[in-house]
């Protein structure tokens, strides 16, 4: 069940990252997509014979969470700089089609 939830979150996040124009919203969406990825990574791994959860994917996800908070923080700092310099919090249509 959580695999499907992960895939749904990944799709929602991808949608938001490209469809939203406000940078803060784009970053929120990227964080939702990464939560989806983390869910898939942990719940796709085979369960242990004793019913426990494999510690390795958990460690990978912990690393992923910390990296994503660091990247988000820098992205927000860039968004603030963009707002201060150019008075906007969006990326132009033409530009964000990448």
């Amino acid at each position, binding site marked *: 069940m959580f695999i499907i939830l992960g895939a749904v979150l990944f799709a929602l996040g991808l949608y938001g990252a490209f469809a939203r124009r406000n940078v803060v919203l784009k970053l929120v969406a990227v964080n939702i997509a990464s939560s989806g990825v983390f869910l898939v990574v942990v719940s796709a791994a085979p369960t242990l014979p004793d019913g426990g959860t494999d510690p390795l994917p958990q460690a990978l996800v912990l690393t992923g969470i910390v990296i994503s908070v660091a990247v988000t923080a820098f992205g927000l700092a*860039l968004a603030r700089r963009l707002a201060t*310099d150019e008075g906007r919090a969006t990326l132009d249509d033409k530009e964000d089609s990448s």
Partner: protein
Amino acid sequence: MSLAPQVLPWAAALALALPLLAGAACFVVGGRTAAALALGVAVLSSAAGLVLAAGVADGGVQRLALGGWAPPLGIAWRIDGVAALAVALTGFIFAAVLVHAEKSLDLLRGEGLSEAFRPLALVLLGGLNALYMANDVFNLYVTLELVTLAAVGMVALAGDSAAALRYLLVGVIGALAYMLGCGLLYAAFGTLDLDLLAGRVQPGGTAGAALALMIVGVMAKGALFPLHGWLPPAHGSAVAPASALLSGVVAKGGFYVLLRLWLDVFPATGAAPAAAQILGTLGALAVLWGSLQAIRQTRLKVLLAYSTVAQLGYLMVSLPLIATAAGHASGLAGALHLMASHACAKAAMFLAAGSLIATRGHDCLADLKGAAHDHPMTAFTLGLAGMTLMGLPPSGGFIAKWLLLDASLRSGQWWWAAVILGGSLLAGVYVFLAVSWSMSRPPGEPSDSQPPPLPRRLEFAALALALVAMALGLVSAERIP
């Protein structure tokens, strides 16, 4: 002469540790001490790469278990000839760029910019060295993130937050796709180590999907066509020394990871031939599109950035050649030669552009008239490095393209040869555009508007890189089949 057994692990560990420690130090202290430290560490990192290369030549490919735990429990580094030479060449390019940056950044915008540049560059160097040696798909993910974050920080130095943000967002989404692939590989095959994966991966949907995700991820990070859209604004707007590092070195990081996956894991999936044709076609489009865009540009740095998109395309074109038995050796050698010679040449051209910006304050091609008259060495550097982009003999680019042509003819895929030749012609056009403006005489007599002289070290740093790009061709001339 053989090295003591302890030397190689030390060289590898220091190639990571020294740049990280120096980067931390340069965050705390500034000034001349920090400048000397940064330069010294870049040189030492390059030396460590040479030691590693000697070790590999001596005892073959080396595997180092980090933390003393062998895979699959722990993480191993694998140091082969390519990784060792990549460490050596990267350290050298960083050293040249740091020499340039110390002067040109301060000329451009007063003191302080070079101080912000230093820690970013050093952490980037450490991250790249870790990337070259990593042999674990998740460890590669962490190094890719480190490299991307440092690279985005460098783009942001110039003040173009929009370009930096776009780069960051594409990088993060690429990383997510890559990490998904890692998770699927572990769930299906129980390991993240590349060597072990090579033995365990079986053809099937899981392996195919995981690798597709990872390849899309590194293509986004490495600006491989069609996910290249963020590169020209980012590399075109960054300060010139940052562009030199990004276009010269960082841009190859994505393809480097792609190549590792391609050589180790892909053969076992059975999907290589089909994937190779798709990626090769994308590469051909990149060559065409990047070159045509480069020809249309009016600013030198943006022209160079589009040229990078095109040159990365050649690397993708090498994949269908590598995938065949007949073209494997030449194709791989060609791709590696292209990475090395383009790294030096493109870094040299961006540094030369930076020198011109430092004196003239801009890089609009139409207003560069007379630059060759005022700064002959810088104009010579542009031309010399341009020869590598075009693939003229005896440059490193010539050897690379010769090898690729050889591989495409050997493997009976003449159409890739057509792409390579056509791309070289287009490269000739945009290099001519880049150089001819500076060669043309200014309209009036420039006696009253003599620009300020350039500090010698700016010109020498760029020239050294262009000379190495040329020398790469000379030292490997015997490889011509």
